[in-house]
Structure formats: structure tokens, C-alpha cells
């Protein structure tokens, strides 16, 4: 990784640093030679594309350069700089039940984008290698090949490369585009809502994201509209030294509905990549957002624990309107470390927050994940269903907070946190926090820890079902309540993912 741009940890501020980088590390020589694009595919699953990146390192100048590069309005640069100044004063959180060596924030590339960018008219300008990558991942971006009921925004490293079905969505007034595009097309919405759910200084990683975020998805559903198709964003990390700091904002106006899906993968590297995203959701009166994630970032070498993504993500929804609803469903099967607490702030009276989670850790993975439900409005309701599965040498923690404010009379919460251990070397932990500010509320918490018994496995085996398949069936059964919340297509994918991950686990 010793290329010229990286020797100086803090890059020069000028645009001169936007040099096209060398091919992705480890790529065969000549892989990016122009005109040979068609031949590059035999070289494994890191895509060889011409990228423009900044050198490693973070400074005010780098942030100004990102903003200038993206031609942003002044309010956004102010937003970034404010966040950066806060971030400089903040400490990396250390309360999570995870261990990792200190991250050198000057050793990260904060901007990487493919040289060939899409145009508004279509995919013609997108690097064909990227299109092929997504196709290989099962996400063809060509609208003809797409399932007609799912629109996709594809994010490759720092940048949204394509959004499908935009026109069709526009007919119903639905806006679905990259956040960079939204900054230019709908600056009022961005200025009003960006940072309104996750303030810039909310936490260390959110502040970092607010300072350097490069892209992500933007969704606006107009009043009284049920989004005519599922929306989804697919994130792909490709460059070894780059961090991914995407930013997603979804706004559902009065009486509207959207179901949004998010998927993630990354190639194998021996080093760790930082992924610090922020997702903000807002629902107005009677609106509903259903947000589903299947996260399968590279989780490091299962034997040595080397490499993998640090997934430090802030996801939060605000039920601003009366009777509005936000529902998070997550299936977390990847990342070396997961630090993630999709939460709901229930402001509107009678609003509803839900969190359904399956978190599987295998190999040397570590997860500290859960949810926060903050009840502010009257008669607000929330439920948390969490299923943690720990196998091999992994560690899996549920951490949750249910807070009922003084005025949130009639608020109700139900939490159920179940852990399952596979093998003898893994561990599961539960850290539930409950704060009730009034007597007229009701909070219920249930927790259990179970282990797959030798007799259960023998039962399956005595019926001809191999041990590995037995484990995967039992684990999938354990997660059923959560899978039932996922859209059909995703549920099937999630089950396959779990089985795949468990394949080499000892029973």
C-alpha cells in the first residue's frame, strides 16, 4: 500500500490530490490498462476499476475538498465542519462489549469514487466492471433485468453508481436518489431533515460520518402515497484502504408508506475497513417506514480473525407524527465487529416502534447490538425481538434501552431477547436498560439463553439429516419470528446466509 499519495499521512488540500489511484492492491499488473476492461474479470472478486481517491488522512482541508468536489451548498459545508470540530473533541466509545486495536483515523482514505460516473440518463457511463460486480452479487442494475417490484440504489465504495426505476417512482411523486443528488435537487428537504434525528455530535462515529459522508440514499414519499415498489440500497466496499461513510435519509410524509431494504457485502482483505454509516428515518402523521437490513460484510478470517469490516453504525428513526410507525428488521451475519443500535424516538402520540433482530456471530466475530426505544408521546408502543446466535470463538451481546418519559402516559414496551450458543467457546451477553418515568406505563422484558443439545442433534441425525444441516435448521427455527418480518425474497436470502455461516461451526 506504499503508493506516493499515502506516504504523507495528511494530504495536501488542493484538487491536485485527486490523482487516479493505482489499481486495487493485490491486483495483477496491467489490470486497469484501458481497453482491457473485458479481460479483467478472471481476477477474483475485487473489482478493478479506475478510481479517484484522496490520499489517506483527515483534516479540515480534506472536508472542504470533499464538499468542493461534490459542489455542495454552503449549509452542508457548515454542517460538515461543525461535525468535524465536535468530533475532534470526542472520545471513541469504549463501553461496548468488543475488543479491537486502536483505529488510526489518519490511515483511512475518506473519499474514493469510480472515475466513470453515471449520468442521469442511464447506465451507459457507469464503468462496466461495476455493473458486472453488482450483477455477480445478484443485483443487476439494468432495469430490464431487475425484478419489476424492487428499485435499487447501488453504492460502490463512497459513491452511488446507479438508481433504478427512478422514472416510474417519480410518477407517484416518490423521490429515490443518491443523497448527493438530493443535495442539489431538494436542498430544502436536506437542510430541514439532515441531522434532525441523529444530531452531528450524537456520538463519535456519527460525528465522523457527518463530517465526511460521501453518499448514500435519499427517499421522500409524498403525503398519502404508498410507495409502489420496494426500495433498496446495495452497499459494496471495494477499495482496501477506504472507509465507507454513507448517509441515508428517508422521509415519509403524512399517511405514506415505504418498505426499504438494505444489503451489504465486501471482498476479503487482511486489513480492517471502517464502515461508519448514519441512517435517519422520519415519519409524519400516520406514516410508516419498514426498514430491513441483511448485513453480510466480510467478517474476517474464521480461523485467525484477521481482516473484516468494523461496522460502527448509527441508525435512528423519529416517529414525529401521530400514529406513525417505524419498524427495523435486521439480519446481521457479517462484519468483524458490529456496533449498532437501530432505535426509535416515539414523539407522536400513539406512535409505534419495532425492532426485530437476528445477529449471528461465528469465527472470531464480535457483535454488540440492540435497540433503543425512547417513548415521549402518549400511548406509544414499542417492541423488541432480538435473537443472538454465537458460535465458534465469537462474542454476541444484546444491548438495549427502553426509556419512558414522564409525559408518555400509557406507553407500553415488550422486549424479548433470546440467545443461542453453538459449541463451547462462544459467549452471549444481555445488557437491558429500562428507565420508566411514569407509573402509568408498562414495560415487559423476557430473556433466555439456550444451547443446542447433543440429543437434539442426534435426533436429526438419527433421521438421516447431517449435523450441519441440523444446526442450521435449529438456528433458522430459533430466528423464525424475525424472518417472518422480512419481505419474502430477503427472508430466503437470510436463511441461506445463516446456513452458510454456520456450515463450518462445531456443534
Amino acid at each position: 500500500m506504499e503508493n506516493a499519495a499515502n506516504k504523507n499521512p495528511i494530504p495536501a488540500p488542493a484538487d491536485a490530490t485527486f490523482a487516479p489511484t493505482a489499481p486495487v492492491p493485490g491486483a495483477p499488473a496491467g489490470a486497469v490498462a484501458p481497453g482491457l476492461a473485458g479481460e479483467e474479470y478472471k481476477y477474483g472478486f475485487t473489482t478493478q476499476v479506475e478510481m479517484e481517491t484522496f490520499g489517506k488522512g483527515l483534516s479540515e482541508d480534506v472536508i472542504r475538498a470533499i464538499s468542493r468536489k461534490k459542489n455542495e451548498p454552503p449549509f452542508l459545508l457548515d454542517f460538515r465542519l461543525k461535525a468535524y470540530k465536535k468530533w475532534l473533541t470526542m472520545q471513541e466509545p469504549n463501553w461496548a462489549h468488543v475488543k479491537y486495536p486502536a483505529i488510526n483515523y489518519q490511515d483511512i482514505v475518506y473519499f474514493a469514487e469510480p472515475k466513470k460516473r453515471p449520468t442521469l440518463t442511464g447506465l451507459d457511463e457507469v464503468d462496466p466492471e461495476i455493473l458486472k460486480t453488482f450483477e455477480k452479487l445478484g443485483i443487476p442494475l439494468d432495469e430490464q433485468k431487475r425484478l419489476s417490484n424492487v428499485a435499487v440504489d447501488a453504492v460502490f465504495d463512497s459513491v452511488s453508481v446507479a438508481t433504478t426505476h427512478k422514472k416510474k417512482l417519480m410518477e407517484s411523486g416518490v423521490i429515490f436518489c443518491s443523497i448527493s443528488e438530493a443535495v442539489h435537487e431538494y436542498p430544502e428537504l436536506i437542510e430541514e431533515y439532515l441531522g434532525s434525528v441523529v444530531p452531528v455530535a450524537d456520538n463519535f462515529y456519527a460525528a465522523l460520518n457527518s463530517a465526511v459522508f460521501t453518499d448514500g440514499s435519499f427517499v421522500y414519499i409524498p403525503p398519502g402515497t404508498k410507495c409502489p415498489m420496494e426500495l433498496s440500497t446495495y452497499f459494496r466496499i471495494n477499495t482496501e484502504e477506504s472507509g465507507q461513510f454513507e448517509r441515508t435519509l428517508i422521509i415519509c410524509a403524512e399517511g405514506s408508506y415505504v418498505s426499504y431494504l438494505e444489503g451489504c457485502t465486501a471482498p476479503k482483505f487482511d486489513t480492517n475497513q471502517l464502515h461508519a454509516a448514519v441512517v435517519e428515518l422520519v415519519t409524519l402523521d400516520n406514516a410508516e417506514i419498514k426498514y430491513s437490513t441483511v448485513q453480510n460484510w466480510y467478517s474476517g478470517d474464521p480461523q485467525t480473525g484477521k481482516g473484516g469490516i468494523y461496522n460502527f453504525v448509527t441508525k435512528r428513526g423519529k416517529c414525529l407524527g401521530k400514529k406513525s410507525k417505524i419498524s427495523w428488521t435486521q439480519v446481521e451475519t457479517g462484519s468483524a465487529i458490529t456496533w449498532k443500535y437501530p432505535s426509535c424516538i416515539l414523539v407522536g402520540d400513539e406512535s409505534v416502534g419495532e425492532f426485530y433482530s437476528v445477529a449471528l456471530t461465528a469465527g472470531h466475530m464480535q457483535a454488540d447490538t440492540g435497540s433503543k426505544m425512547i417513548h415521549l408521546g402518549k400511548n406509544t408502543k414499542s417492541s423488541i425481538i432480538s435473537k443472538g446466535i454465537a458460535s465458534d470463538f465469537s462474542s454476541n451481546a444484546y444491548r438495549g434501552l427502553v426509556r419512558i418519559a414522564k409525559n408518555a402516559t400509557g406507553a407500553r414496551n415488550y422486549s424479548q431477547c433470546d440467545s443461542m450458543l453453538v459449541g463451547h467457546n462462544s459467549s452471549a451477553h444481555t445488557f437491558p436498560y429500562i428507565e420508566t418515568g411514569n407509573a402509568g406505563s408498562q414495560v415487559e422484558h423476557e430473556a433466555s439463553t439456550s444451547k443446542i443439545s447433543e440429543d437434539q442433534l442426534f435426533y436429526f441425525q438419527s433421521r438421516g439429516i447431517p449435523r450441519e444441516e441440523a444446526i442450521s435448521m435449529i438456528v433458522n427455527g430459533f430466528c423464525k419470528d424475525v424472518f417472518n418480518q422480512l419481505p419474502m425474497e430477503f427472508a430466503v436470502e437470510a436463511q441461506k446466509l445463516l446456513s452458510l455461516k454456520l456450515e463450518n461451526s462445531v456443534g
Partner: protein
Amino acid sequence: MTTATSYMLEVKDIHATIGESEDLTQILKGINLSVKAGEVHAIMGPNGSGKSTLSKVIAGHPDFKVSKGEVLFNGENILELEADERSRKGIFLGFQYPVEIPGVNNAEFLRMAYNQRRKAEGKEEADPLDFEEILDSKMKALDMDSRYKERSINEGFSGGEKKRNEILQMAILDPALAILDETDSGLDVDALKVVAGGINRLRGPGKAIVLITHYQRLLDYVQPDVVHVLSGGRIVKTGGKDLALEVEKQGYDWLVK
């Protein structure tokens, strides 16, 4: 003794233990048992004598270690095989205490097991609708309500329902050798008839059945060819079906020194 191949199951001088080092317990102390295709054998014996252990050793439970002896199935030593491989070769164990498996759908489990067997026989997997038909007819024969399909495996099943579910699994898998460990315990009179009917349907020239039981009443419906009494980890007596009647009348004292 005739040649090895004429027996479907041959248990030869099996010694089996459970536990490690100081906790090591010898449970089976030299068992010999030979069963031919077409035969029904009954194994009786006092509580704790090792009947269930024997059945699990044959089926391949990893907790029990065989310290001596061998188990041949159609002439092949199967002790090195995993339990699922033994099952796919045609060995079935009906459990004395079927375990509950929360969250796993009973019908799906049965389909999975059925397809594993088909794959092993080089046949195509049955599609879900075809399997449903097979399952429905087998359930009907065992007088089982179709709602057992939707429930998790054995979860919340009554004692008798669990046993009936074992026989259902046997009927679906159609094994060459069925070892049924106290499948008759906990059944009411009508259920006993239904379960016995299921066992008799399996019975045939190419099949062998080993019934572990404490009671003559099952043997009234399923007449055994040979009866063994197991005590203290050894077979202490082998006889015809009259041996079961004698045990019923006199208990085991006269057999156990």
C-alpha cells in the same frame, strides 16, 4: 452361526461406556445379538439395564464410546459411521424420550428427512406437494390430526403424541431395521392398537424390527420371533415369545442370579 451376510444386524461382544476418566461408567458389558431380515425381536429387562443404551450405540449416539466389539449392518461394520449415515443406510431408532425442538416445523423436518433418504438412494427429492400427499396418507393411517404438521417437532406434544410421531417418522422413512425403544409406554389402549398397526405395516420379509418393551400387551399385537432379557449390561436369557409371558408373570428375579 452362519455367514455374516445372512444377518441384517449383528451385534458382537459390544462393550460401551459413557463419560470420561473418573466419570467413566461401563454400561454395556459384552452384548451379542443377531437379527435376520423378516424377524421381530423383543428386548426386555429391568430399568437401567442398558436397553436404551444399546439402541443408541447401534444408531450412533456420539456420547457413548464403544470400547470393544462391533456392530454389523448387512455385513458392514457401521461403528465408524456418523448417526446420519447409519440412518440413511436404513436404520431407524424410535426414541423412548423424543426430544423437543422448538421453532422447527414438524412437516418440514419430515420432508427434509425423507429427501435425505431419497438422495442417499440416488432418487430425486420429492417436491413439497408430492410429499404432502405422502405425509397426509401416513398421518391418516396413524389417526393423526393434520395440525401436528404445523407444530414444532414434539414441542408440547403429550407423551402418547410423541410416540405416535415417532411411528409416523418410521412410516415415512420406511427403514430396513427399526429399533423401537418403549414406543408402547404411555399409550392409551386405542393408541396402542394404532401404533401396533403401524409397526405391523412395516413388518415384512425385507424388514427387521427390534422392540424394546416392558409389557406383554404390545407383544400381543406384534408377535415377536425372539425375546431377549437384558440385565446389567448383558443379555442373560434368550427365548421364544413365551419368555415374555414368563417375565410378565414372574418378573426378573429368577433370571438375574
